């Protein structure tokens, strides 16, 4: 039976791991390579490296770290952050990424998903989308959640999946950083709209939040989180044992 994935996300800036709370106020946590190895040993099913560096120098540091991580960690690696062109796909895939996550890059150039899927296959292209309720409507936000694009989120997600996005990471800005659980309502709508893997992000505060997620939405394939893992509030091995105990298909 296919198992539900637990995915820690590492925000990397200038070669170090950081985590934004509601995308603001960053704290330096640890070395991305060491953290990646630690998570892999704890049972992480996949890792997301999110490059939040703006400079070319930082980009170089990031690909060095990616290469080193991919030489030491043998589980799927997804890379996101600053992916705007096919050259960006090429750069990170050559350094050991298995999948590439696009967010603002796809908003700026909606053809990017299609081009990348054609070149590297659907399985390689992950759509990441930051969603927030505005007057009761799910809207897509760009630039790390700071800018309302005005686009309706479900139709945007459907369009990108039709263009070849092989997975969708749905990050609810409304629940992100609040630690009161995933945005079940928002995720449910996405799950009903597309038939590719959906990865839930934003809002996990404890083990029960993941169990609630997979029990309420059997169509969700994975849960992603950052700070609760980084700060040791939830240990991945405890989480996975608890999931298995709750009858959720889990890789132990």
């Amino acid at each position: 039976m296919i198992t539900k994935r637990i995915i820690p996300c590492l925000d990397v800036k200038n070669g170090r791991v950081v985590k934004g709370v509601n995308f603001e106020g960053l704290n330096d946590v640890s070395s991305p390579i060491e953290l990646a190895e630690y998570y892999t040993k704890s049972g992480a099913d996949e890792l997301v490296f999110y490059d939040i560096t703006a400079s070319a120098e930082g980009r170089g540091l990031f690909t060095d770290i990616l290469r080193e991580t991919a030489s030491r960690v043998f589980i799927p690696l997804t890379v996101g952050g600053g992916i705007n062109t096919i050259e960006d796909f090429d750069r990170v895939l050559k350094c050991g990424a298995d999948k590439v996550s696009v967010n603002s890059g796809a908003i700026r150039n909606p053809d990017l998903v299609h081009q990348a899927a054609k070149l590297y296959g659907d399985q390689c292209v992950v759509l990441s989308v930051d969603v927030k309720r505005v007057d009761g409507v799910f809207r897509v936000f760009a630039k790390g959640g700071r800018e309302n694009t005005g686009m309706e989120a479900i139709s945007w997600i459907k369009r990108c999946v039709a263009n070849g996005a092989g997975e969708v990471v749905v990050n609810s800005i409304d629940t992100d950083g609040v630690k009161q659980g995933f945005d079940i309502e928002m995720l449910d709508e996405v799950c009903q709209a597309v038939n590719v893997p959906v990865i839930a992000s934003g809002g996990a505060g404890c083990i029960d939040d993941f169990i609630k997620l997979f029990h309420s939405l059997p169509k969700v394939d994975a849960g992603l989180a950052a700070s609760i893992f980084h700060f040791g509030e939830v240990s991945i091995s405890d989480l996975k044992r608890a999931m298995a105990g709750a009858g959720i298909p889990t890789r132990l």
Partner: protein
Amino acid sequence: MIAVIDYGVGNLFSLCRSLEAIGQEPVVTGDPELLRKADKLFLPGVGAFADAREKLRQSGLEEVIKEEVAKGKPIMGICLGMQLLFEESQEFGTWEGLGLIPGKVVTMEGVIPAHYKVPHIGWNELHFPQGDRHPLLKTVEEGDCVYFVHTFYATECDDAVIATAEYGAELTAAVARGNVMGCQFHPEKSGDVGLSILRTFCEGDW
């Protein structure tokens, strides 16, 4: 010497790093001479069957692979590389494969229930259909998880199937016939279980 066949398809970075992690020094090459000298071959691949098949043919590596395999050299195909080992693929057309293992490659769409997502992406459990484990999987326990990413799968493989995965249907996960072996999943992305399979292949006497 372990050779990873480079025929211009897919990303060989992770496979090479995983082989290094188990103490091998893989050589990535499309040079027929080096492939002939190698003790064992890996046939990797992601992407479209027809494109990969054409590249193998155009590069002349198809003949080299067939000759070396006929001489008894062990080969392991991974993902699309495994699919190329079969007689035929029906991926967007009908294409002839290398014919090193009986069977054909077909889409899982229409075979698995409609509410199952395609491609089959994620960690899935391995099962041994014949009860006992093939030597390639001697380190693997029934129910161990490995990482899959695929839409097409091999069927009508006679008794070559050595592991399956359940995804609304019983999908071929690994095959072996003599010195020819293949994994539909990615051992180089399947953590310690995957590395142990690569080690068994590299160190085994096939």
